[in-house]
């Protein structure tokens, strides 16, 4: 998957409408984007690169290694990876994959017990010891500062920072019926927490000789499509994608070249967050057809994430697990052959 950095533009013309009409009725499954490519570079960013006057696509890989002026050290494995909210779900799966690949991993969670138990399980399942964890509530500025300090103390530097902590308060109901506490929790974790994490991550990485990559995990609604029954969640995830975009522009304006902000789209993952919403017919259909277990998703995402520092690439990317083509073919095979029926939840 490392060679996927050349954009396949023809996929962009894939019809969107059919999928929209199917998916957005009542339940909008996570990540039904019809993307341009698995790793789609943003041309705007590259065109303005001062060190590189060649057309960016052809020279992307070369350019990165030739423009090492600001970067004193190239990134070489093993990488130091920090994953917020890595005690369960997709974050846990990512941590496991990174460990298997030989990287050093730091995870965090809101409760100490969950951190400890996650660390134990990770050590047992992977047989590797270089994993650390700490308590951190991402919406508390102090906690995040401590997390960055903890990371610095344990690993000296962080190459890959994944903002994974996200919440839906495990409730799927119309906004008017949602409780205030849930709404506040969703927004503070997903938006406020992510912003503070991004700030701390940039702060930390700016001063590292190796620079760093920040990955923000998106979710349903980040393409702007409606997400009824979890409106607040969708709004926060939309704001995540927008924040990534703004940060990319901001870093470019400030001439910061060694910190790159990316988007990461795991698609629909059969975590608690998604499964708690499996109570309507449409939701069940899409979960069965499109969702994958966290391990499968992580097995795909981690090599893709690792390929970015390996290639020395400096352009912002949007890594997607569930691409449009994949979603279409899965929906087609379900309708045509009844594949994946009752895979995770019983349909009637």
């Amino acid at each position, binding site marked *: 998957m490392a060679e996927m950095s050349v954009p396949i533009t023809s996929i962009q013309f894939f019809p969107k409408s059919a999928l929209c009409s199917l998916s957005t009725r009542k339940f909008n499954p996570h990540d039904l984007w019809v993307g341009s490519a698995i790793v789609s570079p943003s041309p705007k960013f590259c065109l303005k690169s001062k060190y590189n006057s060649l057309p960016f696509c052809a020279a992307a890989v070369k350019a990165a290694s030739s423009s090492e002026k600001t970067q004193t050290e190239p990134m070489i494995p093993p990488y130091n990876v920090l994953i917020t909210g890595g005690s369960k779900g997709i974050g846990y799966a990512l941590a496991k994959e990174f460990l298997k690949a030989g990287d050093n991993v730091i995870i965090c969670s809101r409760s100490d017990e969950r951190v400890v138990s996650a660390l134990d399980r990770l050590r047992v399942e992977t047989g590797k010891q270089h994993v650390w964890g700490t308590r951190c509530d991402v919406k508390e500025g102090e906690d995040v500062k401590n997390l960055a300090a903890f990371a610095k103390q344990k690993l000296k530097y962080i190459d890959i920072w994944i903002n994974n902590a996200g919440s839906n308060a495990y409730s799927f109901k119309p906004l*008017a019926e949602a409780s205030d506490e849930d709404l506040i929790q969703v927004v503070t974790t997903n938006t406020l927490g992510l912003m503070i994490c991004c700030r701390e991550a940039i702060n930390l990485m700016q001063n590292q000789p190796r620079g760093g990559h920040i990955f923000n995990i998106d979710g349903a*609604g980040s393409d702007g499509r409606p997400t009824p029954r979890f409106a607040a969640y969708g*709004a926060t995830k939309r704001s995540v994608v927008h924040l990534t975009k703004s940060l990319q522009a901001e870093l470019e304006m400030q001439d910061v070249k060694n910190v790159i902000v990316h988007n990461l789209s795991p698609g629909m993952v059969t975590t608690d967050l998604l499964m708690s919403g499996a109570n309507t017919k449409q939701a069940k259909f899409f979960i069965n057809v499109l969702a994958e277990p966290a391990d499968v998703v992580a097995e795909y995402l981690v090599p893709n994430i690792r390929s970015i520092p390996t290639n020395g690439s400096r352009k912002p990317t949007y890594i997607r697990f569930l691409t449009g083509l994949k979603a279409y073919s899965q929906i087609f095979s379900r309708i045509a052959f009844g594949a994946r029926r009752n895979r995770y939840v019983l349909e009637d």
Partner: protein
Amino acid sequence: MAIVAKVHVSTLECHHYYHRGSGHPPLSGRVLPRVVTTWDPLIVKGRRRIVVQPCRSFKSEDEYVKGSETKKPVNKLVGAIRSAVWSCSKPSLRTEIKYREAIEKLEERLFLLALYVGRYVITMMSTGVVMFIGFQLSGGDSQMNELIWYSWLGGVIIGTMIGSNLVLDEVARAGPRNVVITGSTRGLGKALAREFLLSGDRVVVTSRSPESVDLTIKELEENLKQAVNAATGSARKKLAHAKVVGMACDVSEPLDVRKLGKFAADELGYIDIWVNNAGTNKGFRPLLQFTNNDIQEIVSTNLIGSILCTKEAIQIMRTQSNGGHVFNMDGAGSGGSSTPLTAVYGSTKCGLRQLQSSLLKECKRTKVGMHTASPGMVLTDLLLSGSTIQNRQMFNIICEHPETVARTLVPRMRVVKGSGRAINYLTPPRILIALVTAWLRRGRWFDDQGRALYAAEADRLRNWAENRTRFSFTDAMEMYTENTWISVFSLSVVCAFIILSSTGST
């Protein structure tokens, strides 16, 4: 087309007339004011936009049933004439003064009737002229004549549509609205509150600090008093129900928001329009330089505040028989384009746009309308704090005062129907004009050094009444709804078709 053009011209004329009449003491005794009042019902549209006292017709709260009012203007007219004639002929009323009053009233009503008839005649004549020209051009070709007759029929139908649209709009404008505006003690919120208030609505203002709420209430009441004093006749009657109340409320606190909803419902009875205007930005700088508190305040005001307020508004409006309308304010980043230096603000506004689309689906079968209002760029603290000289040069071209924006947004917010409408200040014609006149707009608000050239709010308000009388071309273009433009366009296409096809045959 004739109808539209005519109505329009008449509004302007009588509007000036009105002002001359009210500005100086009447020259010829009682004649002038009387004429003025007679014009009233017809110029609502124009006046709504241009004069200090918007919105003429006023229905008491009991009549507040939207659906059944389409035919009212005509019925009212007939009823009024009948009662006027009746009171004239009653012997008991034939004392000198009462008789004169009754006669005056009759005269007034008859004048109104004559106006309606005159309008009709002119419309008919203009269509007749168009048809006559068509017949002349067709040169007696029977097929062509048939075509002309059909297009005449089409024209009549379209004309009726436009007419009924105007009437419906006029009816929809009537009556006071109960409005809640969050974050309305300064900037655009205050301007919106003032505009709603002067349209005869009952307004709830809120802000985090109780002191500024009190100050704002006092100031708005003062404005209202001035407007009432300046108003005459029906305009004053319309303002009779206007009032402003307020309470302190932090929109990011669920308890505060619930209290606000309860307060508004208790104080006003029901809520028609809820505007989520509260928003904050904390200056223009990179994310790294924002403190935790800054980020938290922006997110909690913009995103949490809007979500909680929307939720509260939906909960209240769902139980109301008339439903209601919720407006969320757009801002930089709503469209999805990146907003460097205001990353936090931009991403909250972008999230709000997605929220709007989700809520649109959730509220599909309810009477609650979810809308967005986009004020464009407004010269408020939010925009100006931390802006550079280069920024300010750009502001010269595209920025407007909050009062100007509110004057455009409020009338359309009051009459909003359905759900999912976007009410924008910066519409294509406005942007076009701004770009075309960019050269003239240099130094409009700021000079080369970025110093503000415009008057403070108090001074602006003093000149307000005069400013409002100035006719704006873009306002006029905005006056007609999209449907009307489509009708006008199709009508002109029909006309063009007639002319083209007839010239081709001869």
